[in-house]
């Protein structure tokens, strides 16, 4: 695989120089928000904040947080920093829990975004020779268009096939010799499953690079995806969200030891999500990001609700940029079951080493009497276990013991038939919480 660095000047900058650049950009951002975004101006006045009061980078702790609720409350354009006519693109989230969150990009913002994606795509192994199929749904969602422009920027050949239509995806992959795929981890796995079911040898595919994102991917799931595709298929993880441009905030290099952050654009902090206190470097908590260069909808200390930690040591790949660990969970995805914090990703990593079952799973939380129960449904795929009940029961027990030892609570494991758990082409829904129903 190619081991290039897209922008060595920014990605390999000395830490002291990077911090100086971030400080300079932070001051400019505060000044810009003060003058152009009423929402921030009002808050700054109330808190007595002005750009000249920021002397060192850690002064960022005195700035207010921004939340998704703030974006909804100012729907649609209330937090934009420019007149609507200067906005050249609008994206929006689905808005399942109220107003959608709407974000806008100036021409300059789109340029920065493409640059950020160019870096993660290069880090993940793509280059000007790549032929990429983008299997994210095009539209208001930032994933598809974000990767699209970044990959075009590095000179790759982009096939904007969008999501769904699995047979056509696989046909183009074979006929075009597609070597790079942009998809969610679960869809990438589903494609491999479908290819196998259609009875076409994996030798007919030339897939080498997977830039997978938009939902979490544990190392175990990643290994499984690579194994299913075979032929040296290499998967890297990347991270971003529409409030912070979209994909491109960070991405893994070939060493896959954390996702390199575009620090000249994004100033990251990790906080205690309950108290709001900033944590020390390296500690685990909620990621908070300030988008230093965005002007269409500037974002100061945006609370991502994603749980991670950041490593500031230079990487062996040559980049000096800080690396955030794969997302461990969501502060709002976190299930509290009998007082214990449970992240679906924990269950996933427990399940994926077990070859008798498929990679799809569903957590069902119920309230029985005054107690919560957690049922974990998995698909049995290994027919050779059908000879004796004892073997199936032993498998059930093995899964039960493994998950219980990780979560520390009692669970029930249910074996289900293949394909009985719903598949998703977008973000997978892995939890059904029936406690308040």
């Amino acid at each position: 695989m190619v081991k290039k660095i897209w922008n060595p000047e920014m990605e390999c900058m000395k830490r002291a120089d990077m911090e100086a650049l971030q400080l300079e950009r932070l001051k400019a951002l505060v000044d810009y928000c003060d003058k152009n975004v009423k929402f921030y101006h009002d808050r700054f006045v109330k808190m007595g904040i002005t750009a000249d009061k920021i002397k060192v980078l850690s002064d960022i702790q005195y700035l207010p947080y921004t939340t998704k609720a703030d974006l909804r409350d100012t729907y649609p354009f209330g937090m934009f920093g420019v007149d609507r006519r200067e906005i050249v693109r609008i994206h929006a989230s689905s808005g399942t829990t109220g107003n959608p969150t709407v974000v806008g990009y100036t021409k300059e913002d789109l340029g920065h975004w493409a640059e950020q994606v160019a870096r993660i795509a290069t880090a993940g192994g793509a280059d000007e020779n790549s032929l990429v199929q983008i299997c994210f749904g095009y539209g208001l969602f930032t994933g598809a268009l974000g990767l699209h422009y970044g990959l075009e920027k590095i000179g790759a050949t982009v096939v904007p096939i969008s999501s769904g239509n699995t047979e056509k995806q696989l046909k183009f992959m074979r006929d075009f010799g597609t070597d790079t795929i942009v998809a969610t981890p679960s869809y990438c796995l589903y494609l491999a499953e479908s290819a196998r079911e259609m009875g076409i040898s994996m030798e007919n595919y030339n897939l080498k690079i997977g830039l997978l994102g938009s939902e979490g991917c544990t190392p175990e799931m990643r290994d499984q995806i690579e194994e299913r595709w075979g032929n040296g298929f290499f998967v890297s993880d990347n991270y971003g969200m529409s409030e912070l441009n979209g994909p491109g905030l960070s991405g893994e290099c070939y060493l896959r030891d954390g996702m390199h952050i575009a620090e000249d654009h994004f100033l990251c902090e990790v906080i205690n999500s309950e108290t709001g206190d900033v944590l020390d470097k390296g500690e685990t908590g909620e990621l908070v990001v300030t988008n230093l260069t965005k002007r269409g909808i500037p974002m100061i200390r945006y609370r991502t609700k994603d749980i991670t930690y950041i490593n500031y040591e230079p990487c062996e790949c040559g980049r000096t940029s800080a690396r955030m660990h794969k997302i461990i969970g969501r502060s709002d995805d976190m299930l509290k079951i009998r007082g214990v914090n449970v992240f679906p990703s924990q269950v996933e990593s427990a399940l994926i080493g077990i070859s008798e079952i498929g990679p799809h799973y569903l957590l069902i939380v119920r309230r029985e009497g005054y107690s919560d129960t957690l049922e974990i449904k998995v698909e049995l795929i290994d027919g050779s276990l059908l000879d004796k009940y004892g073997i199936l029961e032993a498998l059930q027990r093995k899964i039960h013991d493994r998950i219980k030892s990780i979560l520390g609570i009692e669970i029930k494991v249910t074996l289900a038939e293949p394909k009985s758990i719903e598949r998703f082409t977008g973000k997978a829904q892995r939890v059904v919480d029936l406690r308040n129903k």
Partner: protein
Amino acid sequence: MLIKQISVFVENKSGRLAEITSVLADNGIDIRALSIADTTDFGILRLIVDKPDQAEKVLKEAGMTVSLTNVIAIGIPDTPGAFAKAMKVLSDTGIGIEYMYAFISRDEGRACVLLRVTDNEEAVAALRKNDIEIFEEDKVYKM
């Protein structure tokens, strides 16, 4: 001399047996014998059919978890003590029975008993030595 038995994993929810058997029906596959045992969550359906290889293929294509297992089919005359004799042969030889089920064959008033044992070869040899009839594959599929 060994019979191919189909095992299908069945979730405990209504309509599943109808779905599985209609896959067989749609492919013109005839069921000779069946047995199902279940726990609270799931069951294993065991089937003897006229075309076991095809049955395995179509059930797999329909997305089911399926396996083929070799079982023994013995013919038991309709007289008191005939079945007990066969059981005694196996127990004397130290062969364990995992499970079994039976049906009445249309010819000569004999019962056909399907056995899943710990050691097929040894069981067949012991049963033959004691003059217990072992049904051939074709005969069972066409019964």
